[in-house]
């Protein structure tokens, strides 16, 4: 039955409005995922993966950076175990995002939380955590956000894998800057206090140093954990001494 708030299924109202709101928040992600997915599809085909395999990786793994690396490793003839282990290392950062979102989902069932978890990426996490914490979202919000982003990634990958040979230089255009621009916006919105601004500055500097100076892929996790620890510690120390 259709009510003003949504469709009634098994005595419960499904709020489609929340789904649509989540899908709308995914729009900038779509603008970034389609071109990056195309770039991945092109690269995967060049590395020797067939159309089905290249697309299956996007459907099943759904993690950009690790897919680029895996495609390269497949192309270089790397062993399966080393590809899986590398994927684990590159994608462990999601555990940090997942932990950070957990307090917002205290009222979700374990199954719902497990389903929402499938869609966590750098970008969906950034958008979800920019929502005011006081505003409790229905799971449908997260499904809208995650499914729209996922669809864009799979569609982009498929297009890239199909059209790869015909795209030529169009695939080189910096359309993926959409994601960097979205991060800039989200950072501007997230910085609500001087403590958070200083913490973000420290995280950025550490990440730069780790990426350029130490050539580690752990720059995001290490820089975030260290900066958040310093930020939370200083905040506590300042509040105590006043």
């Amino acid at each position, binding site marked *: 039955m259709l009510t003003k708030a949504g469709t009634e299924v098994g005595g419960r109202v499904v709020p489609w409005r929340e789904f649509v709101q989540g899908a709308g928040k995914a729009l*900038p992600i779509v603008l970034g995922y389609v071109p990056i997915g195309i770039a991945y599809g092109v690269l995967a085909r060049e590395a020797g993966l067939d159309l089905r*395999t290249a697309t299956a990786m996007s459907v099943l793994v759904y993690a950009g950076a690790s897919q680029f690396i895996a495609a390269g490793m497949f192309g270089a003839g790397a062993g399966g175990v080393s590809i899986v282990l590398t994927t684990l290392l590159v994608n462990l950062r*999601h555990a940090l995002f997942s*932990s950070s979102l957990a*307090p917002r989902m205290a009222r979700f069932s374990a199954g719902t939380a497990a389903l929402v978890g499938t869609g966590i990426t750098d970008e969906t996490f*950034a958008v979800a955590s920019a929502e005011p914490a006081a505003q409790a979202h229905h799971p449908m919000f997260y499904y809208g956000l995650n499914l729209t982003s996922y669809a864009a990634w799979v569609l982009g990958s498929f297009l890239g894998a199909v059209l790869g040979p015909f795209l030529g230089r169009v695939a080189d255009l910096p359309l993926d800057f959409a994601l960097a621009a979205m991060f800039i916006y989200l*950072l501007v919105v997230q910085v609500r206090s001087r403590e958070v601004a200083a913490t973000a500055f420290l995280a950025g500097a550490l990440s730069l140093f780790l990426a350029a100076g130490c050539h580690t892929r752990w720059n995001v996790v290490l820089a*975030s954990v260290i900066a*958040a620890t310093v930020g939370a510690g200083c905040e506590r120390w300042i509040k105590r001494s006043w």
Partner: protein
Amino acid sequence: MDKTFLVILGMAVVTYLPRALPLVVLSKARLPEGFVRWLGFIPASVLAALLAPELFLQNGQPALGPENYKLLAALPCFFVAVGTKNMLLTVLVGVAVATILYVWF
């Protein structure tokens, strides 16, 4: 089932677990207040940690000059974000400026 597909299945498993496990376990647990406050600093830290290498490095090397079109394109993005608080507009301006700078130089 061919070997490549098995490897992809393995990749899927090791990617899914870190995504979902903390959410399932920690959303049910009562977290210490200090830990929740610490988690509150994580989103801004992650954003800055993702952005800084993207904007300031080219091919793994620091690039602060005008040849770094991403750094140049970041400036109008910042001002649009601060001025309008509109995510889609920020993204559209960013992509447009980055594309123009990239084609130009």
